[in-house]
């Protein structure tokens, strides 16, 4: 397959799967539709994640068809900074079937085969103007069951190359083809339901074709796994899928909360000096059909998002963690032995 035809395939996969679903029609008045577009990149001296989300407003007294539009953005150079900005209805442009979102001066658009992301946080000195060029064929995981609720769906573009500019206070970062990650999720569920997840992605160095996406979905207590998977890409193409029975997990220690950023900041009062549920290091070993893959992730940087539960006064903690990655193994007779960077998300109590 030629370079231009693989690029065409990459674009077609995004156009067919990456469009906005939106809560245009309530599912039996369930009223808990959630949808977000997430972009992330991790380099030794810079971490960035941006999340545009639109959710049905299920708070007390909310009018039946109202939604919450929220932009979450955090960046890390020598330390984390970021914020969560909320937008009024008149500031938001979201169209079911469209490929982009506009929240005030911020947007995601998909044009000419690449994503453009512009972020200007209201109260923090952070500006992001990046173009993300997909270099892998997207994958879509449908019907992920979250307990007794309708399933959610996960559209993932595991590798894009980010170029442009990130400004953090008086620092300006110029990015050129930095490996990045994008996913798009949607579904009807409530924060605080009986589920937890760990997902992550890893890019094994700029010159290596290997990359993976990891997913583990469990009950809240993490005593029962509902889903485990490691999707491996080689170059642009999906290369191997390891399923639940093939994967063993091991974690070590606990990452300290000291030095982490909590968003919204006021929520730091709810978690005074506590330990986190983020391991200091994390290993996954997948083996099956003569193939083996070992992932060693060492946590380095932590940002925690505190999301109010929809139906009780608790909160769901979403820990975004970047760190170093060692990837080794053998797939289809080909040896893998590379290092790189990874970002994991631990969601739970």
């Amino acid at each position, binding site marked *: 397959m030629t370079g231009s035809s693989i690029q065409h395939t990459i674009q077609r996969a995004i156009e067919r799967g990456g469009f906005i679903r939106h809560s245009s029609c309530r599912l039996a008045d369930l009223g808990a539709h959630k949808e977000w577009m997430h972009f992330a990149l991790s380099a030794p001296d810079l971490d960035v994640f941006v999340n545009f989300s639109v959710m049905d407003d299920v708070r007390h007294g909310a009018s039946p068809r109202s939604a919450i539009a929220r932009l979450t953005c955090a960046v890390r150079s020598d330390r984390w900074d970021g914020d969560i900005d909320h937008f009024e209805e008149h500031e938001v442009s979201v169209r079911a079937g469209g490929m982009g979102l506009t929240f005030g001066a911020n947007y995601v658009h998909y044009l000419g085969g690449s994503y453009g992301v512009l972020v200007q946080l209201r109260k*923090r000195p952070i500006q992001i103007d990046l173009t993300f060029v997909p270099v892998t064929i997207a994958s879509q995981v449908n019907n992920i069951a979250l307990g007794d609720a309708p399933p959610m769906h996960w559209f993932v573009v595991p590798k894009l190359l980010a170029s442009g500019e990130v400004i953090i206070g008086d620092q300006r970062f110029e*990015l*050129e*083809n930095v490996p990045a990650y994008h996913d798009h999720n949607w579904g009807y569920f409530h924060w605080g339901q009986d589920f937890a997840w760990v997902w992550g992605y890893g890019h094994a160095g700029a010159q290596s074709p290997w990359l993976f996406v990891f997913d583990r979905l469990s009950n809240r207590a993490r005593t029962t796994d509902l889903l485990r998977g490691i999707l491996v890409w080689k170059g*642009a193409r999906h290369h191997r899928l390891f399923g639940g029975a093939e994967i063993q997990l091991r974690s070590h220690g606990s990452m300290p909360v000291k030095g982490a950023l909590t968003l919204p900041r006021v929520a730091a*009062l709810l978690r005074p*000096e506590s330990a986190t549920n983020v391991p200091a290091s994390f290993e996954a070993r997948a083996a099956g059909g003569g193939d083996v893959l070992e992932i060693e992730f060492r946590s380095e940087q932590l940002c925690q998002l505190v999301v109010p539960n929809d139906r009780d006064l608790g909160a769901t903690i979403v820990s975004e963690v970047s760190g170093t990655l060692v990837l080794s193994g053998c797939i289809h007779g080909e040896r893998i032995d590379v290092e790189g960077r990874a970002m994991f998300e631990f969601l739970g109590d």
Partner: protein
Amino acid sequence: VIERDFFRFLARALAALDEEAPDAASALAHSLAGIALEMTVDGESRWLVVRNGRCTLSASGASSAAFRSTREVLVALLEARRTLLDAILCDDLVLSGAPHAVAAIYDAMSAFVQGGMRSRSIARLLDAYLTAGQPCSVTPDSSHDVALEWRTVVATPLQHDDS
């Protein structure tokens, strides 16, 4: 809109909590039941009490527990520039009362924060309180360009074996 006065902020936030996050308002009232909390911020005092199942501020009263701090410390805590433990160990935030009352005050604060995160109005009230006294906007503009430190993050694109 700016709001420098902590007690005006708190009174409005309690009213918003009743309207927009009643579960949190109930949890707050439940935690403080039987406690008369004397709150002193920058030397000014009010009493937080539960009446008819609702938390209200009054200008006078008897105290069974006390809270003392300053606007500067509260803003630092709300913006997560300091931690509760640090503020308490430095005597910048003083909680006094029987152990069960101090524990109940922490539970009440947690309920208040949880409610605030669910309320549409409290976010605006909090912004107004935090903004008061700030000298200028932190949003970068073109005038910063000269002083910006440039750094470059470069990576080479993947070599595709498909191409």
